[in-house]
């Protein structure tokens, strides 16, 4: 009921993507590091995109590696629209451009193979890709959907790690459903009985978990947009992508 949370802009004054965008013009190692971190985080959606567009396992790996190599060399960054750019749309547009460019295609193998600018372990890629729903998705849709799920995977992994670190790993799975909510959930009292906590303690725990989850999620999304005001919009976009 509290008029909670004025726009959380201040919290994310410097997001990774905003650093990248800010550094686009100059030669800033911070920008490069931030970009590398983002690429590391979101390589799989690109990989799935390339695979769905028909590239083979190794070709897709080479394309992604080659593309990141090129991106990190800043050939593409300068083209980012500083005001409206989002990492997701930038990556998609740049990658599409990259793969459709015959010259780059021919060079992909060499670039990806010879000069590993970004060390990525992509061996899991094919394993994950095999699990992608095969029936309905266009490369673009699979990219967007996978992007949204990647955001969630990372956030939940972070959250889980925090629970594990504080020795509360068993609470994580039990309380996560309450973050989302929904009618058939057992009441806090029942949950408390299972977890050997009081009803009040469960309430507090859920409240904290929800808050922490939201912060992590919004931070993760904020890292991919240039302006924190875009977080909600981006989130909504990701929801629709699923």
């Amino acid at each position, binding site marked *: 009921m509290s008029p909670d949370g004025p726009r959380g802009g201040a919290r994310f004054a410097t997001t990774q993507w905003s650093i990248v965008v800010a550094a686009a013009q100059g030669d800033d190692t911070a920008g490069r590091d931030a970009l590398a971190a983002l690429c590391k985080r979101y390589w799989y959606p690109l990989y799935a995109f390339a695979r769905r567009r028909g590239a083979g396992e190794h070709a897709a790996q080479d394309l992604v590696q080659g593309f990141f190599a090129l991106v990190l060399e800043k050939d593409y960054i300068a083209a980012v629209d500083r005001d409206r750019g989002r990492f997701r749309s930038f990556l998609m547009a740049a990658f599409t451009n990259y793969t459709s460019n015959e010259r780059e295609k021919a060079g992909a193998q060499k670039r990806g193979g010879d000069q590993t600018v970004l060390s990525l372990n992509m061996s899991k890629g094919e394993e994950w890709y095999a699990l992608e*729903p095969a029936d309905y998705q266009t490369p673009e849709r699979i990219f967007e959907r996978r992007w949204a*799920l990647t955001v969630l995977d990372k956030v939940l992994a972070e959250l889980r790690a925090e629970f594990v670190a504080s020795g509360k790993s068993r609470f994580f799975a039990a309380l996560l459903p309450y*973050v*989302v909510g*929904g009618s*058939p959930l057992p009441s806090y009292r029942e949950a408390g009985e299972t977890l050997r906590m009081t009803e009040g303690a469960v309430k507090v725990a859920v409240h904290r978990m929800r808050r922490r989850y939201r912060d992590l999620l919004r931070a993760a999304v904020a890292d991919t947009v240039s302006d924190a005001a875009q*977080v909600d919009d981006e989130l909504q976009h990701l929801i629709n992508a699923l």
Partner: protein
Amino acid sequence: MSETHNCPKCETPLPADAPEGTCPRCLLAAGLESADGGATGAAPDLTTVAEQFPELEVLSELGRGGMGVVYKARQKNLERLVALKVLPREIVEGDEGSVRFEERFTREARALARLSHPNIVGVHEFGEREGVYYFLMEYVDGANLRQAMRTGDLTPVQALAIVPQICDALQYAHDQGVVHRDIKPENVLLDKQGTVKIADFGLAKLMTKTPDDRTLTRQGLVMGTPHYMAPEQIEKPDEVDHRADIYSLGVVLYEMLTGELPIGRFAPPSEKVRIDVRLDEVVLRALEKDADRRYQAVIDVKTGIGEASAAEGAGDREFKKEASFQVGGGDKKSRRSSLAMWAFLLPIAGFGLSVVLSIAATLFAPERTPDSGSATTARTLVMGMSSFSGVAVLVGLILAVVALVRIQRSGGRLHGTGFAIAALVLPLLCCLPGVGALWMATLRSEVDHPAPIRDETAQIELSRRVLPSDVGDLIHVADRTVRITLSSSASRADLAVDRRGAAFGEPNHDFEPLREGQVFVVERIEMRRFSGSGEIALHIGDEVVPFGATASSTLTPLWSGRFDVAAGAEADVWLDGEYGDVAAVDVIGRLYRVRENE
């Protein structure tokens, strides 16, 4: 079981790769600024609601979703159960200045309150209290369609009975200028009598941005469930009209029939479940991506369903007595149509049966026919039977065609069924004397020639196709005789082609003569693409079997017979006659060692 596959919050099916087994959409939605405070902030608990609505006795929470929270309550003065829907606070807060929202809310709510239809959840009252916008609505005691589907009890027949009611409700609302915009199984309620009640009419419009609200990004929440939304609802929300509901209805229909959502390149429902293929057309047309190619009115969907399921007006009445709705049940029309289907099958069955009987008769008789007096009788009988069967087949065919034409023209009624039955029965009757003759001939021939006891271990398959490459020069020799010598060795059997008695081909040298006690049963000798003239006969030992007419063209004489092998005898099969061209001669038979009977 199936609960685990649906999100407890939005109730859509969980994807297989849902992180931590939690609905990814709801997880992301929990991060929205507007979701701040989540279920605690936006949805007041029972006590708070009870304080805000003193005239109500708030009993329990019925559910919550993107459209707010619904409570079951009792209206104290009227002593009736009502459903209280409290809209999420954030949609109001998100609107720049709630004045604007209030205007829209009032406008929409008035339109909803005017809707009065037995298949639409009625709005008793609406308003705002302490910043909370609410609707007081008719309470529906039952379940929603999602829950009904989840229990797995919803048969395609029941599903089809629900649809006309949905159509009625939507058509009524569309006539009043109200578009639902969020038709999905959760919004289709079913009361205990099986009556459909559609909830949340037009609420989606309150939740989404209107053309003049374009600047309000936070208001740009697309609240509906994307799977049920028409493409134009996502792509061009400003251009949404009543046809969006038709698309959503198509999705619901598809899901009800198949249990799956029509995502991407989906299969027509009839490929997933046993339903009439004509339903595919209806479902697929409702699901047209392009609104112009879709059904243009809900009533047309209803008509389409009615025609396809041959159950016009399959409305609540049929749903309530769903047992009698089954094909062949109480409904006269559906019974008629099922009978008509059988009537279609009858002539085909009759025709097929007579053909089979005739072929069987022609095939079986000669095998049992020895060269004796009784054989002549049997042959005569069989000939007679064959002509009977031939006539029967012809008459059956004609009757079948007449029946089919008449049934088709009578539009699902039973004209022509008499012909169909006759087409079945007549060939049967005609075949009866023939079958009797065959039976008698078999009996008699068995008396004359007891069937040898086959020693299957000594059975040797003889099968050889003699191709022109083997015999090409042979059939153009002066005496125009192809001589096929059947021989056997201990381990193998082969056919040798002899020319005027001379050995042909290397393998012949090793052949042993057939031994006494062996019987060669020729099952069939076929000649393909044969042309020529004259009498063609088959010489087996001393027996000469006429091969039939040999005028021209393709000739595939069916012949079968058996001869006993005398001690040391060489068994030759001769083909005598004038040959023009033979593409191949197939000799297919079996060699048995037999023990004498008795």
